[in-house]
């Protein structure tokens, strides 16, 4: 059955490679962004009581810089699906019908495309960028000694949690995409999704900086697993038990969200009104 989705896996990989200019622009913008964040945190730590040696909410200055660099790379490699936009286009142009009459599941098509894109991004950019970042950061003494062989377990869990993060992102995109069946417009939904994820996943600010109650709630939500947790696993800020728990929470959310998406789609598809023709 899965063989039917091979062309979409391939298409996801090919699309990723087709946009070289985008990747170049992203690299340029990101370097500037990371530089801004470094100066921002520099100012924060300098003005704190303990100065540059301060540990704020469990993060030393050096760990914070490592966190900023790694979440940025992680976001680039992991979140590059266009599921929501593609569903939106399918609905607006009426091309959703083309897939409804084929013996494949609409969800499976997008999952395969995103997976293809993730694999390409990881192989081409992820692995070299992670390796470079880790070597430079630990060379500068920004990361604790990457003590082998313990590090390999973390690296393995990191890659696994990266896969989970990508799937979570794709499932959430899909759910928001299916909501376009009701709103007929994806713009607002996309903004909502992007804001929710960047705020609640700890990309903007580690969740340790949030109030205690909210932090507890968020540690059981799917968002932390999409950015903060994988990076902290890689930085070995989490011990193995915590890392495993994070991956388990993500996996459980993937199952729950997929089931929800399935139910939502089978309701939404009844609303399909392919316009014209």
């Amino acid at each position, binding site marked *: 059955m899965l*063989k*039917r989705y*091979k*062309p979409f896996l391939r298409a996801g990989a090919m699309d990723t490679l087709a946009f070289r200019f985008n990747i170049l622009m992203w690299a340029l913008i990101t370097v500037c962004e990371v530089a801004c964040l470094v100066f921002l945190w520099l100012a924060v730590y300098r003005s704190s009581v303990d100065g540059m040696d301060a540990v704020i909410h469990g993060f030393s200055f050096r760990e914070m810089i490592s966190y900023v660099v790694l979440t940025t790379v992680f976001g680039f490699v992991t979140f590059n699906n266009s599921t929501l936009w593609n569903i939106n286009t399918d609905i607006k142009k*009426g*091309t959703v*019908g*083309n897939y*409804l*009459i*084929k*013996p*494949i*599941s609409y969800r499976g098509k997008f999952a395969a495309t995103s997976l293809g894109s993730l694999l390409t991004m990881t192989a081409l950019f992820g692995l070299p960028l992670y390796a470079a970042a880790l070597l430079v950061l630990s060379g500068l003494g920004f990361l604790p000694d990457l003590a082998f062989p313990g590090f390999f377990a973390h690296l393995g869990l990191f890659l696994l949690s990266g896969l989970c993060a990508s799937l979570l992102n794709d499932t959430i995109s899909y759910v928001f995409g299916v909501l376009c069946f009701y709103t007929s417009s994806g713009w607002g939904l996309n903004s909502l999704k992007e804001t929710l994820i960047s705020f609640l996943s700890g990309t903007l600010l580690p969740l340790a900086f949030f109030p205690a109650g909210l932090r507890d709630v968020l540690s059981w939500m799917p968002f932390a697993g999409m950015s903060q947790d994988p990076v902290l696993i890689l930085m070995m800020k989490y011990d193995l038990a915590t890392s495993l728990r994070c991956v388990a929470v993500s996996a459980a959310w993937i199952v729950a969200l997929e089931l929800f998406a399935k139910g939502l789609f089978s309701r939404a*598809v*009844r609303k*399909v*009104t*392919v316009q*014209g*023709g």
Partner: protein
Amino acid sequence: MIEVQDLTKVFRKPVRGSGLSGMVKTLFSRKYDEIRAVDGISFTVPDGEIVGYIGANGAGKSTTIKMMCGILTPTSGSVRIDGVEPYRKRRQVAQNIGVVFGQKTQLWWDIPLVESFKVLKEIYQISDADYAGRMAFLGEVLDITRFLSQPVRTLSLGERMRADLAASMLHNPRILFLDEPTIGMDVLVKEKIRQAIHALNRTYGTTVVLTTHDMTDIEDLCSRIILLEKGAILYDGPLKSLKNRFGNLKTLTLTVPAEIRAETAPRLSPELAISEEDGRLVLRFDADRLPLEQVIQYAFRELRAMDMKIAEISVGDVVKTILEQQEAEHAETI
């Protein structure tokens, strides 16, 4: 086999006020208009039949097709394709049907045509041998081999439509739904498309449901016609009896000497209508009531015809008459 039972589709359309104040009002209160696009229709199509599904624009043809192939879910009633409801078991039914919407392509726009076919080969899990055989068959009947390596966006409309047809037949579906497959095609392409549909039907026994506004398509292909108007079936039966609905109507067009005029010509019978078109006399009559032989004799003897053309009433004329009658009845009830 396709079984359609009391099939109904109601669309709800928000009523929008006009102007700015109207738009603001619609933001807060929504009123809906109900449109019964398909209204309680039933019919059965046995295996191997070619059915013409015709009617005016907006009669509900496309909506029915979309329900039969599983894109739309009926408001009430049911469709069964070989016993399975397509909107419930979408993927299972999709493997056995092929669909072409004349106004939209299902091919991938930017990649060479042959790559689109390869994608479909994987989606439908077609074996290498079947794929090769099917491509040879379709390449011949639809003449698509020449432009297989071109991206779809560079194809002409006729080429694209043939490619779309080939794509829908690649997995050898038991049932083919064609929604206006000849729209915008020139006569040669239309001819090719009709031949392909015939060839497929003969070779594989494929059932075909086809909507069209081209009556030549219907006369060429369909043994049975379903005529739809305002979501309801007006006629369902063989092409022949539709033609004879208003009797065995015939038209004789005569070239006659200049002094013979429609108004002054000697009459044969009140059953015979005489008019003038482009300087020729046109006689219309029901051959079941007024024997053709008698009219021909009359034409030669009384009207001194020098040349004559005999034509049967066309399906187009019949459909036009039926729709006009409906319109008139509708106007009367209002």
